[in-house]
């Protein structure tokens, strides 16, 4: 991700705009990252990191077509690169990176389990389309992939998700 080169929030108007952006979007981006990454703590860190970068470059970020998509992308890239590093170092301990949520809704927990069985790349596309409500073109731009790849990953991801859910219902 190339970070726009501009000043951080400086004026009170900028601050108000950033506050509004933060309060409107932070929960949605966090949930999107939590589902994508399968790890609430990592998602929280990723959102904090991405929002900090948005704050630092707010004048440029607010001028983008889709600032929330940019924050998601920054958080996603930060988490996956950080995650790769941790996985290299922790080896077989990587399963511990999936702390279970405190969800009281068994169906919600089952849904997260099902999504967690998909490859990360497919999960990211599904989340962008469903939770962030992005179009194919916006998803491609957010994830830095082609529209064809978005369609392909969405199709395969949904097919895999359906299979996982069917397996679960047969048990």
């Amino acid at each position: 991700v190339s970070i726009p080169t501009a000043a951080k929030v400086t004026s009170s108007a900028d601050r108000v705009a950033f506050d509004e952006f933060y309060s409107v979007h932070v929960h949605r981006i966090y949930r999107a990252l939590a589902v994508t990454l399968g790890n609430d703590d990592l998602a929280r860190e990723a959102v904090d990191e991405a929002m900090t970068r948005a704050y630092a470059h707010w004048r440029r970020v607010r001028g983008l077509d889709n600032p929330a998509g940019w924050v998601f992308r920054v958080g996603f890239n930060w988490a996956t690169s950080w995650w790769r590093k941790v996985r290299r170092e922790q080896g077989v301990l990587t399963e511990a990176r999936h702390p279970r949520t405190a969800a009281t809704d068994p169906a919600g927990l089952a849904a997260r389990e099902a999504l967690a069985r998909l490859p990360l790349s497919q999960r990211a596309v599904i989340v962008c389309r469903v939770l962030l409500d992005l179009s194919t073109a916006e998803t491609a731009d957010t994830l830095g992939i082609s529209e064809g790849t978005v369609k392909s990953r969405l199709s395969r991801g949904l097919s895999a998700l359906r299979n996982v859910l069917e397996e679960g219902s047969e048990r």
Partner: protein
Amino acid sequence: MNVVPDELAEVVHRAAAGTAEYPVDLSGIERRWRRRRRRRVVACAAGVAVLAAASLAAIPVINARPGPDRPPVVAADPAPQRLMVGGGTWSPMNKDVTDGNVLDRRGATEILPDGTVVQWPLPNLDVSYQVIGLPDDRLAVLDFATTSRGRTTPPPLTLRVVSSTGAVQAVVPVGTGDTKLVAATPETAYLWRSEGIVAYTLATGARRVLVPADKLGVKPLSGPAADADLLGDRVVVTVVSGTACKLRVIDLRGGHVADHPVTRRACDGTGLLRISPDGGLAAVTYKPSTGAQRVAVIDLTTGAPRVDALIENPGGDDRAGPAGLAWQGSTRLRVALLVSPPDLDRTYYREDLVRQQLVEVG
């Protein structure tokens, strides 16, 4: 197409609703930024030092790759086969082509399992090509230069690996002569050439004849439309002899060769061939002497026919018919169909005339 069905969107929303609460802390964002700004100077200096040290200590590592000494293996959990439209026939890569009132746009066409048609970009080369979709979204492309001006020898062929954005990631020259791209993995492409089935390592260009031509008994592009496929310990080729259409199954371990009839009917010829992901079945399209094209599924161990289905051909002119095969698991076959333009006074893009037919294999 390519929309998210409501029941699956509901699953995703339900998963999101189950996440732990996010602790909103706007002032924490600013504190984090201030800490970062203080560290920046130190971090930059440290980074320069680390880079300098790393550059001194860096040792280039080259991973030796094994040679292409075997066909694609049967995976326990194989990736779904990709259904490319017309991938086994030569198509021009660098320009739109009009065939009557049907326009072929530049790019490779794929039908996704849900029926969505995707057009993949290809490099702007003056070549004709065959294509196979790799499991990782890339394409294996075999091409030859279309331009023949001043050429007195056959055009050389080239294998390329093309990314989903159309970027060429590997180039392997493969010489001249009748050639068909029959299978590919991310590491190896398998070509049917006059010397037999030849495996090319895409990273290095190393080649090895897997099955010599005398074992195959037929030459590439011979007969009405010969095709081949290979997986695990088996190579399968289509053989047409008189009015009999057969599959020739070659066991690479013991060298055993078995011919299985595609159909008991009188047969004009075969078309496409694809082995199922578990290596146990092969689907083959064929044209009976009477009637429309059909697709047969044959058990490669016993030769028993498992399916013999009519291929849908709405419109039914010469430009319509089967254009690709792909297995979805080992119990469902996807057949790419080119259908006839419904209105002869209108121009259609080829991708608008692409359909898929599903064939269940019990």
